[in-house]
């Protein structure tokens, strides 16, 4: 009897390894169409990577060694289950270490795990996506202004959700481990150390206020171990399995005051927690406390989720092929914000985006790309002309570097690079071996850039006049040709000529020549009124 082969209906095994500032955690889950998600393993081990990074700027050999030991054990568990897809990620403790690359390499050599160092926006996005899932049906994010705050070991991540749309996201150097490292003065009396902490946090909170409208916040959602602990301590005794709980400001004030009086040793004794976690308790509490008092709200919703849950959600969505509509909207919104900054033509940008998406969907069989690429195409279309802000001459090149150096919420750095290249090739030269930046992309990304840029060029050609004339078309494939039958436009001269000019990459990539024709058949199948998503 042999083990059954995996087929489409068989559940997929996914694994997430998260290297944080205090510990390395892993989740192995099974995702099936019918059984939902089942967590098979959840592990956590204390490895204090943040300690070195925040104090000395690099990971010590000892900490790296400890991390590798833990990661080898993780790998054993992953291999035991034969987990097919694994994402291993690291956050600030590795991100900020000068020797991060060496560490990533050692992890790869020792375990074969391909460690991704997450940027703060991606980290926020993952946390927020987990929060959305967790609060679904409990807290309606669509009609409130919510601040999601996660105090980690290295940094505090803040995301502002205005009616469910992410409008701002930033990372601040207020981590529980970092604060402790900076203020680790064993001789100092407890009260004095706490005062210093409060002071430092208050300064940062003032800075936050300048870039985020904290006074408009209507709901504060706290994420993080210490927030969860506060919820357990202040809440009514109940099942700790509750994902969302509420902490009232008064109860929290009392808890913070009580804890701030005690040393880590005493906290450890009082709550039966390991010293390593009580050392972080007061610094983290003070950050939440500072944020809570900087907003007009009088309670915080504590959400017992983490970035790992967001990662899992991502992987589950990937495994099941479903898309996260909120993520798509957030990314698009973030791209529009950047567009506004560079005074783009929003109507043209949106219209080209719609046309490009329409073509992308029509050509799914030809390009075989993922929903993620579809999103990158949307971003590239939105921002393809932002280079005009610098100069109209060679504006596609300016678009490239403006996009490449932007942080787009919800996109990883590599993804932003792809979007930047797609925008770069929306006109003039097609990708060439002399284009150094293009060559630095991984092969798969280069292929994707070709396929996406080819579509974007055609979409752009269809709105050459920036008048959004072409609204409805249908597509027919015939002997080496892709014919776009456009309805309701009497004069297509401009579009036809532009398409001839810009269809070069399309023909190279898809082996189809693009032709634009007027659709005159009255019996034409009724089409969607507008080619929007």
């Amino acid at each position, binding site marked *: *009897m*042999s083990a*059954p082969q995996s087929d489409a209906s068989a559940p997929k095994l996914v694994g997430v390894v998260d290297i944080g500032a205090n510990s390395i955690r892993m989740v192995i889950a*099974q995702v099936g169409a019918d059984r939902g998600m*089942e967590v098979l393993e*959840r592990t956590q081990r*204390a490895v204090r990577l943040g300690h070195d990074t925040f104090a000395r700027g690099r990971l010590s050999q000892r900490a790296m060694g400890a991390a590798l030991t833990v990661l080898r054990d993780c790998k054993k*568990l992953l291999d035991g289950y034969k987990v097919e897809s694994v994402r291993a990620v690291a956050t600030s403790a590795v991100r900020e270490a000068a020797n991060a690359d060496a560490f990533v390499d050692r992890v790869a050599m020792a375990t074969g795990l391909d460690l991704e160092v997450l940027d703060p926006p991606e980290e926020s996005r993952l946390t927020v996506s987990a929060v959305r899932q967790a609060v679904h049906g409990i807290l309606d994010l669509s009609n409130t202004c919510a601040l999601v705050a996660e105090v980690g070991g290295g940094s505090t991540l803040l995301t502002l959700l205005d009616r469910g749309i992410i409008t701002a996201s930033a990372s601040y150097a207020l981590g529980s481990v970092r604060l402790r490292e900076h203020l680790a003065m064993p001789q100092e009396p407890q009260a004095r150390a706490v005062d210093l902490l409060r002071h430092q946090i208050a300064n940062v909170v003032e800075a936050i206020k300048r870039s985020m409208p904290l006074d408009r916040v209507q709901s504060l959602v706290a994420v993080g171990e210490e927030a969860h602990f506060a919820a357990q301590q202040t809440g009514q005794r109940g099942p700790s*399995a509750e994902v969302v709980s509420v902490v009232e400001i008064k109860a929290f004030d009392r808890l913070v005051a009580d804890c701030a009086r005690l040393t880590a040793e005493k906290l450890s004794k009082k709550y039966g927690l390991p010293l390593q976690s009580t050392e972080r308790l007061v610094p983290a509490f003070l950050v939440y406390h500072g944020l809570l008092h900087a907003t007009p709200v009088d309670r915080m919703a504590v959400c017992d989720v983490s970035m790992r849950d967001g990662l899992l959600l991502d992987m589950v969505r990937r495994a099941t092929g479903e898309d996260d509509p909120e993520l798509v909207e957030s990314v698009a919104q973030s791209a529009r914000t950047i567009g506004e900054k560079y005074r783009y033509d929003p109507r043209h940008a949106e219209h080209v985006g719609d046309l490009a998406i329409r073509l992308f969907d029509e050509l799914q069989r030809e390009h075989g790309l993922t929903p993620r690429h579809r999103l990158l195409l949307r971003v590239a279309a939105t921002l393809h002309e932002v280079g005009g802000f610098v100069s109209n001459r060679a504006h596609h090149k300016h678009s490239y570097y403006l996009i490449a150096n932007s942080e787009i919420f919800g996109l990883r750095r590599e993804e932003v690079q792809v979007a930047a290249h797609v925008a770069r090739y929306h006109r003039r030269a097609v990708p060439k071996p002399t284009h150094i930046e293009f060559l630095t992309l991984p092969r798969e990304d280069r292929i994707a850039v070709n396929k996406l840029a080819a579509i974007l060029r055609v979409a752009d050609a269809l709105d050459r006049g920036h008048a959004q004339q072409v609204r409805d078309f249908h597509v027919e494939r015939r002997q080496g040709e892709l014919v776009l039958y456009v309805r309701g436009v009497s004069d297509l001269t401009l579009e036809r000529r532009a398409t001839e000019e810009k269809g070069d990459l399309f023909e190279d990539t898809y082996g189809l020549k693009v032709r634009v024709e007027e659709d005159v058949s009255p019996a034409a199948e009724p089409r969607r009124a507008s080619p929007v998503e």
Partner: protein
Amino acid sequence: MAKEPDLDSPELFFNRELSWLEFNDRVLREGLSDDVPLVERLKFLAIVSSNLDEFFMVRVAGLKQQLAAGGTARDPSGLTPAEQLARISRRAHKMLAEQSVGIRDAFAQLAAAGGPRVLSAGDWTAEQRGFLRSYFASEILPVLTPLAVEELQPFPILPGLGLNVLLGLTPAEQPGEPLKLAVVPVPSSLARFIPVPAQEGLHLAVLEDVVAEHAGQLFAGFEVAARAVFRITRDADVPVTDDDAADLLQLVEDVVRSRRRQAVVRLAVPANADARLVQWLKDWCQVADDDVYEVDGLLDAAALYEIVNRPGFERLREPDWPPQTPRDLLGHDDLWQAIQDHDVLLFHPYEAFEPIVRLLGLAADDARVIAIKMTLYRVSADSPVVAALARASEKGKQVTVLVELKARFDEARNVNWARRLEDAGCHVIYGIAGLKTHAKLLLVIRREEHGIRRYVHAATGNYNDRTARLYSDIGLLTAERDFAADASAFFNLLTGYSQAVGWNVFAISPTESRARFIELIEREAAASTPDQPGLIMAKMNSLQDKALIQALYRASTAGIRILLNVRGICCLRPGVEGVSGNIEVVSIVDRFLEHARVFYFRNGGHDELYLSSADWMVRNLDKRLEIIFPVTAEALRARLIGALETYFADNVKARRLRPDGAWVPVRRRGNPVRAQQKLYEEAVEAARAADQAPLQFRPLTRPDEAQP
């Protein structure tokens, strides 16, 4: 309103050692009871002795260590170590005297009933003497190792618990000379009861009598002026301190070896022994009068097991109660499927332990099984469990086994199993530093058509197929996800793959079990109303933890009814007005050793029932890794509540603890109920009902592809 009682008052607690002695006395009562078949009586009389051996090696030795270290701290009942030792000695002396009378009485009845006749040396006929002389020469003499003739300084390193003959010798030519001494250890490899020729029936001579009679032959040129059999018990309370042991295997072996040299805590000599010899022994062993036990009969009554285990004499025994197919598995051919369908309860020994052994065997041979993880505390010799694990590993499955090397007196055996499993390629963990892993847990991970499925067995008793026929224990088989996730997390904790990450259904010692139990007790008190009074029913081996006892006192004061079935130690004093007036304690000592831990809380009508490997003792709650797990399936819970009620209905074997500390038979009212018998009959009835179930036609079809 009455004054708050002081729950720290020594009046409210029984001393744990004295309470344990009362437990052993209950075992003795069975050995003395005319209602118990004769051979079974011998078994109980033997258990009294083997129990006492361990008690002296561990508990008495521990107290003596405390005393030697100048310890004067009082236990919750207000006694210092010295006071405890004095009382223990008094109680144990009385018990041994009663036991000796009981053994003689049982021997007499046994002979009268046509059973074996056990002879004392004075009973030997001339023919038997002749036989024994030649038996000594051919069978015993070759394996004797006499230890020294003249200077017995220092005292020879005799292992504890063995029998020895001490001879006082004088040179044959000079009978007036002072005695010279020799020790002849009685070989432990020989049968203790020797069948001798007789007119009719089975006659048995006692090995040490034969050795004592003839040992003089070893010393040519000397006359035996005095002789005495003696037996010493040594301190075996040598803790395995493993906190920074480089090689735990080596350390454990060293500890086992060192037990040979530990202090003597008890000296047993015959009642009529030569006073000079006894004095010498006392000097050598450095024991006080209190530690000397003069026994009128067998010095090592545990040997009676040999007679119990002889085949035959069925009419003098309890009828055999062969284990039944577990009710939840009746009509199921496929174990995997059965567990998928519903949780399975296994109530041993009424129900067979065989399904667990079978499950392990299946798992070892099933290509879809990818991993097996298991704890082993005490396993049997030639354990099929160990064999299955080794086979699974050889077949390429991930096998993780925690072998608890610190299981007292099983250390040496466990070292062997551990090595064998390691050789087979298993990932073996020798326990957790500073804690004994007492939890009984098995996890089988299987890759099925619809994904990974995990099967869990959690239980109150060890993975020991032998003791599973003698101990009353409860196991649960389940494929519930929450359970499986906790089992995985528990093994990740043991292997060091993870810290504790929070539990779905388990509560774990040493971190949270006490707090959890106290919480459950307090919740019961809080939910109690005059119309819906709270009820706690708990069954355990021992109740000794002070904090839990105090929680029970508070609950009793709050009006909760508390029924405790405590087999062994009970430090709680029931029936004290205003403190424990609502608490009843009963104990059952019967043919099976009561070993299950079951905890029931009425919880305002939302019944909750937990099983555990942990007693309510400090050691279980603070120094061991234990699991407390719920029984969530309605039907199984109802069954266990029924079983608890049966224990409390027992009026045949049950004894009730009185406020003064005496254990008295439960008054007979209504029909006699013997809990173990009733539970067994229920198991038989269920199996029979399933056999007689209407014939069902089961069409054989081509197996569905999705099915294994």
